[in-house]
């Protein structure tokens, strides 16, 4: 202690002053051990009654594996409650002192479950000598006893209709673990730890929601995944990218989706070459068009077969200014996207738009069997 008396959290520590004065005493802390999050108290105090110094140490201890496994045998209704009172002892906030379980709770748990452990050759935890805990009738000390409504199964367990606790991972796994089969009833997506597609009730993993891959019909699990502003568009992976950067030949979305589907052919009598730049559609001026470009564009659309370009006259003057033009040195940009070769803001001298006919590459044909006269 800084002064003769212990201060702060150490003020009520019975050991303050012996053998050394204390300045750093453990205080009440919120329970984080998942096994014990159903308890009627929320704060714990370490070290616990098994000698673990922290909750982390308790969580990886042998006892924190033993008790959840033992609880499945249904050996004692309040086993998990008892286990938690020694793994994460209750802490009294006002005094920062731990509250022990009552001796009778400890004795009942040990009497009923020790023999079950013995069958598989295991021993009851050594540190759980019940005499160390106060007798609720004789000792004038507060101790913990379970209420009627105490949760018998921890959050990582499922409670069978019979009252038995089984590991939650065994719920809806296709095999009955409860004697009354109740763990295999009503096995919807939620019970299996999955998410249910709204239309067809298909179950998908939570990790598949908003991951950019469509799984549910109408891609419903990929909706409402981002909140882009009016100036932005949503990438397939739900990032937001400015409209200006859409189809400019530079990858801005991490999945490159801002550069997908930038070049299409309009559906109609004339299949006009259409560029989806900055989130609006533009046609391409036929000035300086080259046959090499025809193949380039079709290949980018996955249509690498024979292709033909035609030019459609455009009477509308306003349209001339909205068309995209080829940059002068496009031949130097071999291997890039076609839409990268285009720029805005020039008058279309030819007053014609590019219209294309593309076809798929030949595929799936076997050579005819060679004929031989017999």
């Amino acid at each position: 202690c800084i002064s003769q008396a212990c201060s702060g959290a150490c003020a009520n520590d019975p050991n303050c002053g012996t053998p050394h004065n204390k300045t750093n005493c453990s205080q009440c802390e919120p329970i984080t051990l998942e096994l014990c999050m159903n308890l009627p108290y929320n704060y714990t105090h370490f070290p616990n009654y098994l000698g673990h110094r922290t909750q982390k140490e308790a969580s990886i201890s042998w006892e924190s594996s033993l008790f959840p496994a033992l609880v499945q045998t249904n050996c004692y209704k309040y086993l998990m409650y008892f286990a938690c009172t020694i793994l994460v002892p209750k802490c009294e906030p006002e005094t920062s002192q731990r509250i022990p379980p009552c001796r009778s709770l400890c004795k009942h748990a040990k009497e009923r479950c020790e023999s079950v452990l013995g069958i598989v050759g295991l021993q009851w935890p050594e540190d759980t000598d019940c005499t160390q805990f106060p007798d609720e009738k004789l000792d004038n000390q507060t101790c913990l006893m379970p209420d009627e409504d105490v949760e018998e199964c921890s959050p990582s367990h499922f409670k069978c209709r019979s009252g038995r606790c089984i590991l939650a991972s065994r719920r809806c796994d296709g095999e009955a673990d409860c004697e009354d089969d109740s763990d295999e009833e009503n096995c919807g997506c939620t019970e299996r730890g999955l998410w249910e597609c709204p239309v067809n009730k298909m179950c998908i993993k939570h990790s598949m929601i908003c991951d950019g891959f469509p799984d549910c019909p109408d891609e419903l699990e990929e909706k409402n995944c981002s909140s882009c502003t009016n100036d932005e568009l949503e990438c397939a992976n739900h990032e937001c990218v400015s409209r200006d950067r859409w189809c400019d030949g530079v990858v801005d979305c991490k999945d490159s989706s801002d550069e997908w589907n930038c070049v299409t052919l309009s559906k109609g009598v004339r299949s006009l070459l259409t560029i989806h730049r900055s989130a609006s559609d533009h046609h391409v001026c036929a000035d300086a068009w080259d046959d090499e470009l025809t193949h380039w564009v079709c290949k980018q659309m996955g249509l690498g077969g024979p292709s033909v370009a035609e030019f459609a006259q455009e009477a509308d003057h306003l349209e001339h200014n909205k068309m995209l033009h080829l940059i002068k040195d496009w031949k130097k940009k071999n291997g890039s996207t076609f839409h990268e070769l285009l720029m805005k803001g020039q008058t279309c001298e030819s007053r014609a738009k590019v219209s294309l006919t593309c076809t798929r590459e030949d595929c799936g044909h076997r050579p005819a069997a060679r004929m031989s006269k017999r």
Partner: protein
Amino acid sequence: ILGGRTSRPGRWPWQCSLQSDPSGHICGCVLIGKKWVLTVAHCFEGRENAAVWKVVFGINNLDHPSDFMQTRLVKTIILHPRYNRAVVDYDISIVELDEDIVETSYVRPVCLPTKGQLVEPDTYCYITGWGHMGNKMPFKLQEGEVRIISLERCQSYFDLKTITSRMLCAGYESGTIDSCMGDSGGPLVCEQEGGQWTLYGLTSWGSVCFSKVMGPGVYSNVSHFIDWIERQIYIHSFLIN
């Protein structure tokens, strides 16, 4: 292939062999474009380095290189990001070759289905490969005719595995004609009207094929992956390289 027969050279010009030294043939594969090959992701488990692979086209007898044979190195291996080794789901990968193949009568790409183009149950299709025949590994490419089985019926053969929409089942209850070890990544193709062949499946998994546990073979459902395949080819052709 179990219960199949030896193919005539050139009959399946899209079939290729994925090879790695010193083992030689490891998996089958399918030519879908001049520079692009499909196979299954599990072929690359522990061998994801492109430099150790080569792809051989236009070959019938693995032991006798022919004049029509073309060999290419692998530039890029694109595994499906959702490939799950434990349950063999999303078992598909794309291989980019170091240079284009030269299209000949013996080396030609197969057609891919369009989006939403599915193969109906009870359709008869063909599987091919250099995989195990039950009593030996063949030198010559084998072919077998299999019947497409609905996913519901297929699930009834596999109690402990989930048949997903990414899978396609084909074969027979008795397992008389089936794919086997070494056929993985090879094609399941069906003939369309006009004599065009379309790739609907890639050999993926099944029961231990020469055991007494029978059942159909399970193939990666290519129709499910069309968007992903087209997107990857576009990205690697125009955006990455």
